[in-house]
């Protein structure tokens, strides 16, 4: 095996293209090294992207924030700007693994694994995040909800890799939240999860919303019907009931030892309801500048 550390995105994509199938990206390594050890991956080449300029940076851009592909979960949690603008995305990232995993794990890696239960992905989708993909023909952007095509499968083509995730700008009176269910308090994989992002009108009703569900289907899904159910409302009971119904209708989970179909479906609706309420409270706080 060879270890490469390209110093530009173009060089990295060239290496990947020339070694298609044999080269694997190393960012935080918290999944790759587990695969290497287990023998479930035997790459001929490891491409460490951490030496590409900007890839470990959090950079303001167009009022939003560009999160480099090598920025760790812990680093996101330490960054006041990200926490203030996208608290739901940060709380999702911080749920990934232990303190030790947090020191290395990345949102980009969490996305590229293509797992249906990836914690940061519903939060990113709710946020309207966009993945920046570098490849042989230069850079292109892909909305996070379109990035994963199936379990472990993504839109990445030959020579392509994710170099950053863009979290868009947001006005005052807008916020987000992520919640997951696990049968313990720490260190587990979501049985069901929900990310909700809302923006309020000046009268306190919901102007726009995005709702995404994780671990209840082969891929994390954006649920426009759930968002429509709460737009125009102040999350009164009928709106919440409609949100829960829309979420349940969007669930297509597996039945396994970690949760039955019925359980995952019910819990997804409950989590969406709670995440919507938390996002609402946060949005109200930042509308008035009353930051808790």
């Amino acid at each position, binding site marked *: *095996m*060879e*270890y490469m*550390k390209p110093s530009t995105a173009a060089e990295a994509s060239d290496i990947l293209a020339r070694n298609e199938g044999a080269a694997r990206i*190393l960012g935080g*390594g*918290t999944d790759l*090294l*587990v695969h*290497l*050890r*287990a023998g479930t991956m035997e790459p001929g080449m*490891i491409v*460490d992207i*951490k030496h590409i300029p900007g890839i470990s940076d959090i950079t303001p851009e167009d009022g939003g924030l560009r999160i480099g592909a090598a920025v*760790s979960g*812990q680093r996101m949690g330490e960054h006041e700007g990200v926490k203030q603008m996208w608290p739901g995305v940060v709380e999702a990232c911080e749920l990934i*693994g*232990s*303190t*030790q*995993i*947090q*020191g*290395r794990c990345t949102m980009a890696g969490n996305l590229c694994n293509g797992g249906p239960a990836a914690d940061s992905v519903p939060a990113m989708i709710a946020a309207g995040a966009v993945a920046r993909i570098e490849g042989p023909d230069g850079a292109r952007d892909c909305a996070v909800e379109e990035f994963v095509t199936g379990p472990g499968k993504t839109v990445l083509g030959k020579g392509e890799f994710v170099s950053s995730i863009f979290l868009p700008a947001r006005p005052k009176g807008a916020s987000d939240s992520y919640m997951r269910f696990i049968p313990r308090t*720490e*260190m587990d994989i979501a049985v069901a999860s929900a990310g909700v992002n809302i923006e309020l009108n000046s009268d306190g009703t919901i102007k726009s919303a995005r709702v995404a569900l994780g671990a209840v289907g082969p891929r994390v899904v954006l649920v426009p019907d759930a968002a429509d159910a709460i737009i125009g409302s102040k999350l009164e009971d009928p709106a919440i009931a409609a949100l829960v119904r829309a979420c349940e209708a969007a669930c297509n989970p597996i039945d396994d030892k970690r949760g039955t179909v019925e359980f995952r479906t019910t819990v997804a609706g409950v989590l969406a309801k709670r995440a919507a309420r938390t996002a609402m409270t946060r949005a109200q706080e930042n509308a008035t500048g009353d930051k808790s």
Partner: protein
Amino acid sequence: MKNIHVSTTLNGDEAEFVCAPEETLLDALRNRLGLSGAKEGCGTGDCGACTVEMDGRLVCACLVLGAEAQDAQIKTVEGMAIGEALHPLQQAFIDHAALQCGICTPGILVAAKNLLERNPDPTDTEIRYWLAGNLCRCTGYDKIIKAVQIAAADMRGA
């Protein structure tokens, strides 16, 4: 397979080693550099027995390649004591029996030290969450939490 020459800073001193591309930092520390404090428990990042600090962040050394240590600052349990003087955490773990078999202890000490550097006065809950990635199958954790609190109080007073 081509071996890689790595220059790094280990517990404040310059260190060099040669490792295979797929070799983990844990194996490099233990087998190339003779530092056997970090232990291999699971080898998959679940148990925390191999916890070391890399550029100020806790990592599982089993999930880091040796090659990634190039130009990094690595700190291990071997760097905690100053000469014969144990770190307050080490002393508290001994004095208050916060270990039995000892396999998890180096990782827990490194993780607890990193916590106290960030938060000198953590709650029990904060300590438990911080150490959730450090498994101990002997103590039941209570004595570990207590020893960290005692060391923290000691360090605040110092």
